[in-house]
């Protein structure tokens, strides 16, 4: 659909227009967004796995506890960083949130399946703990995906309604 707007009545200076175009290209870069989503998922998974291992090994020496704590801290820092970027710098718009939600559901499903498979084959309890963490993450991912779909649907419906209204008035 072509824009119903009139042609611009005044234009930007050419240099400003080029600079703005570059700004928009950089700000709306899809690979960059998805990269941060992947970073968030990877950091969450790493933190979950290390946390599960740490929680199921209470008899470890102090230095190993410190090492686990350090790794969980690093993972949490990456999670915070990725969330900060995705909420302030590389904003996820409705379409991006749907894609990110699908990525999260796929990623966490694989994680849960992997952990359960490992638990079944080895018979050890740690993979089940990791699987439990994964199930919580999967639930959160599914909730995020449902919300993203709802938001996308609501906006699409509103857009279509407005297009009809604008077309009717034109």
């Amino acid at each position, binding site marked *: 659909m072509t824009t*119903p*707007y009139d042609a611009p*009545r005044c234009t930007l200076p050419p240099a*400003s227009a080029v*600079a*703005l175009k570059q*700004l928009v290209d950089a700000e709306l870069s899809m690979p960059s967004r998805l990269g941060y989503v992947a970073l968030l998922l990877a950091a969450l998974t790493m933190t979950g796995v290390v946390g599960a291992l740490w929680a199921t090994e209470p008899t470890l020496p102090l230095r190993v506890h410190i090492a686990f704590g350090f790794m969980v801290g690093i993972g949490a820092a990456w999670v915070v960083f990725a969330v900060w970027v995705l909420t302030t*710098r590389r904003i996820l718009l409705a379409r991006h949130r749907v894609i990110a939600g699908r990525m999260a559901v796929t990623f966490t499903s694989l994680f849960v399946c992997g952990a359960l498979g490992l638990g079944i084959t080895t018979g050890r309890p740690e993979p089940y703990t990791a699987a439990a963490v994964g199930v919580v993450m999967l639930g959160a991912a599914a909730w995020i995906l449902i919300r993203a779909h709802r938001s996308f649907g609501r906006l699409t419906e509103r857009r279509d309604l407005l297009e009809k209204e*604008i077309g009717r*008035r034109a």
Partner: protein
Amino acid sequence: MVPYPAPAAPPGEPFQAIPDYLTDAVRGSKLIDIQDPVARAHEDEWLVVRCQLGERQAFDELIERWGAPIWRYARRLTNSDDAADDVSQNVWLRVLRGIHRLRDGSRLRAWLFGIARRTLMDRLREQYAVPNVTDVDVIELPAAVDASDDVEADLATVERELARLPVVEREVLTLFYLRELSLGEVADVLGVPAGTVKSRLFRARKLLRREIERTPESGGDS
């Protein structure tokens, strides 16, 4: 000349005629948008919703539509092309990162100019290291305009005289007349009550009239 509609006033607010000294040439110039306010609100919302959906083309259209008005607003208040470029880029950065939070897309116009104003105020605060923009004195720098006909000449006169006004008066006139925001929208943008906008407009019109009448080439001395 086709009659030019006054800026849309919210329900209950009186119809505001455009003063004579904003000449027909300026009213009909490329600086001013002429549209049915309801259609305009729908189109604004449509554009916002598409941006919130993540349609890349909608962002291009948003900038095509509002890039120049924002730049000119910044240019008018800073009297410098470089400063306008800088402010404009900061405004669009904030817009791109904040448009998902805009709940009512029909308020796009007031929202955009609100961001532009805050960006300008931040810049002025940094520049002058004063807490309140009302303390900033007028920046004397007449705009160099290549006027090729009467319309352009009239436009240049108003632009030049606007540039001589103090920031507060220049800003309220720009928003209300040249960008066609309603009193309520201007109040939103400036963060002041509508009554304050009215008094600022009154003062600004008086100042602008005085400046134009004082300028011989504008014809205001006849």
